[in-house]
C-alpha cells in the first residue's frame, strides 16, 4: 500500500472543512470517517463541510461511508454537509440505486457554510425555547417572546 496521503481536516471557527483531493480507496474512506469523528469530539465542532468536487466517482462503498459519517456526526451534535458533487457523479449515484439518506448537500463551499450557519442558528433557537419552556414548566408550543 502506498498512497496513504492523509486528508487534512481544517478547523474554521466552530466548523471543520475537509477537501478530498484524491481518489479514495476503501480503507482511506474508513480512516477519513474516523478522523472526522475524532476531530469533532476533540474540537467540539458543530458542523463539517466535506468537499467532494474532486471526486470523479462515488460508488456504493464511498456513498455509504459518507452517509454513515453524517449519521455518526449527528450523534456528536455536528451537522455534515457534502459539497460540490459533480453532476456525473450525482447521476451515477441515483442510477446505482444509492441514496445518501438525509445527508445535506450544497453546490459550493460558500453555500455549504451558509447552510451550516443557518442550521446552527435554528438549533440554538430551538434549544433556547426548550429551556424556557422547561423553566416555566409549561407544555405548550407558544413562541417565546424575547430573544428576538
Amino acid at each position, binding site marked *: 500500500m502506498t498512497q496513504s496521503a492523509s486528508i487534512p481536516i481544517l478547523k474554521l471557527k466552530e466548523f471543520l472543512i475537509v477537501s478530498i483531493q484524491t481518489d479514495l480507496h476503501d480503507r482511506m474512506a474508513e480512516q477519513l470517517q474516523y478522523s472526522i469523528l475524532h476531530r469533532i469530539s476533540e474540537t467540539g465542532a458543530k458542523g463539517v463541510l466535506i468537499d467532494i468536487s474532486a471526486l470523479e466517482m462515488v460508488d*456504493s462503498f464511498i456513498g*455509504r461511508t459518507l452517509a454513515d459519517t453524517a449519521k455518526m456526526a449527528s450523534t456528536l451534535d455536528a451537522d455534515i454537509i457534502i459539497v460540490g458533487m*459533480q453532476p456525473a457523479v450525482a447521476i451515477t449515484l441515483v*442510477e*446505482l440505486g444509492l441514496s445518501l439518506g438525509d445527508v445535506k448537500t450544497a453546490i459550493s463551499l460558500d453555500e455549504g457554510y451558509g447552510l451550516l450557519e443557518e442550521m446552527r442558528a435554528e438549533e440554538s433557537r430551538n434549544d433556547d425555547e426548550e429551556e424556557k419552556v422547561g423553566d416555566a414548566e409549561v407544555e405548550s408550543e407558544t413562541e417565546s417572546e424575547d430573544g428576538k
Partner: protein
Amino acid sequence: MSKVQIKEESDIVKARSVAKEMARDLGFGLVDQTRISTAVSELARNIFAYAGEGEVYIETDWDHRKGIRITFTDQGPGIEDIDLALQDGFSTAGSMGKGLPGAKRLMDRLNIQTKPGEGTRIIIEKWLDK
C-alpha cells in the same frame, strides 16, 4: 486491452482508473465514463470481498462492436443464486447489495457465468454504437 490483477484494496482504484481512461480515449462522455468506472469499482470490490483475488480484463474491440467490454474473473466461491444476487439490497458480505444490480443498470449489458465452489466470470459492456 488492459489487465489489472485484483489482490489488494488499492487494485480496485487502479481497475476503475484504467477503465475510465480507456473509456475516455474511446470517446465516451463524462457521464458514461463515470458510469463505467463506478460499475468497475463495484465489481472489482466484489472480487476482493468474496474471492480475495482475481482479474479485470478491459478491451475496446470485439465482434465489430464499438465500446468497452470488461471481464471480471475469479476462482472464488461463486454465486449460489444469480437472480437473488441481482436483486437490490441482497448481500452476503454485509455490504449494501448495490454492486451487481447497480452495475447492471449502469451498463448496457451484464452477463454472469458462475459455478458454486469454482468461481465467477462477469462481463459488462457499454456501447458507443447503440
